[in-house]
């Protein structure tokens, strides 16, 4: 059984995005993702092709219509609750710490980020 492949050329609009090595490194830094040198060429290729594809959005004609930005689709606004403590959903300190790698006297131990000076 043959599976159809999309033709990326026809799916891409006028905008073509080509990321540089510097771009990929910057994105990884912003996202706090460790990046190995050897993976950079693949990311350049894959991320550029995805971004070229989604860039076609900029060609969608929405001029003349004032469009709201949709971030929420069911029309809810400002859902509030009473500012009271709900003990039924409280976790014990032991439960909260149960998945931490290291704890000390009820606190989670984290790697030191400040110099000792």
């Amino acid at each position, binding site marked *: *059984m043959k*599976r*159809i*492949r*999309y*033709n*990326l050329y*026809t*799916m891409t609009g006028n905008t073509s995005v080509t990321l540089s090595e510097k*771009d*990929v490194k910057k*994105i*990884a830094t*912003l*996202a*706090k*993702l*460790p990046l190995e040198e050897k993976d950079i060429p693949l*990311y350049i290729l*894959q*991320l550029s*092709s*995805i*971004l070229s*594809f*989604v*860039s*076609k*959005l*900029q060609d*969608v004609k*929405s001029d003349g219509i004032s*469009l*709201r*930005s*949709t*971030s*929420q*689709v*069911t029309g*809810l606004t400002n*859902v509030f*609750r009473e500012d009271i403590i709900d003990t039924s*959903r409280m*976790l014990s300190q032991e*439960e*909260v710490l*149960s*998945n*931490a*790698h290291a704890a000390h006297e009820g606190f*989670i131990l*984290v790697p030191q980020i400040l110099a000792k000076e």
Partner: protein
Amino acid sequence: MNIRELTIETALKRMRAGALSATELILSALENIEKYNKIYNVLLTVVDKESLLGEAKKIETSGYDKPLAGIPIVLKDLFSTKGIRTTAGSKVLKSYVPSYDATVVKKLREAGAIVIGKANQDAFAHGSTGENSDFGSTSSAYDVKYVAGGSSSGSAVAVALGMCLASTGTDTGGSVRVPASFNNLVGLKPTYGRVSRYGIIAMASSLDSVGHMTKTVYDNALLLSVTAGIDPYDATTGLQRVPDYLASLSSLKSLKGITIGVSPEYLVVGKKVTDGMNPILEKQTEEALAVFTSLGATIKEIDLPHTKDALETYYVLCPSEVSSNLGRYDGIRYGKGRDAFGLEARRRIMIGTYALSAGYYDAYYTTAQKVRSIVCQEFEKAFESVDIVFAPVSPSPSSIVGELVDDPMSLYLSDIYTVPVNLAGLAALSLPAGFVGNLPVGIQIIGKQWSEDRLYAIASSYEKKTEWYKKGPIL
């Protein structure tokens, strides 16, 4: 007795008549897990036998009155389960054990369901084949060489192979509907906010919804009547009344008076997927449509010209929300560090980070949110003149495991029929529509927000006529 031959409806009937016990049901499910789990890679965690039999005994003593009394279910591994490991299919959460149950899990347990295990899935629900799991791909129940469909891959295969009678999944861009259709099941993507997401690991919060997979429409309606409704712990749950879904099943004598919208954009057949659906699916899709007509429904052509743009919109908004939601994984309070993310999670985090970064935000994110409005408006307009919209689920049937893993773009493009529904927050049901060779094929019916009862009524008529669910996998 093999649980694979049963539905929730038939199992409950037998248990209530004293012809079957909850213990027998669990033992049969465990037998199937023992037989098939290694081959198909379905469940990441199985609850220990002693505790399952203990739960079954408890049900036997208290009787089978509860709506899901003694029914073995499987949960996608995104659903927090108190004391049971929850991995999201990712090495990041390889040994994470939640301290509380998700609202849905709590509701299912209160209704008498027995959680038998946690299902494999694409890591953090990123994928449409199941191949992006950090714990290996899940195979289709209908052919071990083929993918299960994703991202709720194990959830679907578990039902088809008789490891349970129903399962939960999540659907952000088709993740319930695709695996359901690849495994001959009924898959629900409910209206955004119909089912609580409290305690479920988030993918893209403006799109995520919790769905169910079952063999029949009745079983699906029964499950939703347990899980639907307001949850004070999830502020996005809707205030709308929860209708009686089981009663709605018999609310239509025929489909006379029902108008089904068909968009040419959804039914174009072409050699390239850019041109439409794989010709191999044409016959099943047309036959499914003919079933609706034979039941009295009227077909009306509608216009959804921004379908392709919906896909691009999705692949801006979804990674943006993913990059934000996955920002919490720092390996300090729980889980492993960010170096434990798999390739697809990294790609999505990076695309989202780029789309939200200074200088690109307006061009990508803001534009996508505006096009999302166009997609919503197009559906609103369509629903002025039709009751439901008919569409395929995936442009092609299940693929061979490993065939497309190096080609993320072509996998993204196969979501074209499913993502518009999530962008507009609509309800949709995927239904079995026959087979290509041994591989199941599905269609979906899409309804307005909060119209699950209507979808079940229409699906029930279709199912009575087709009865595809009776054809189990050849094992």
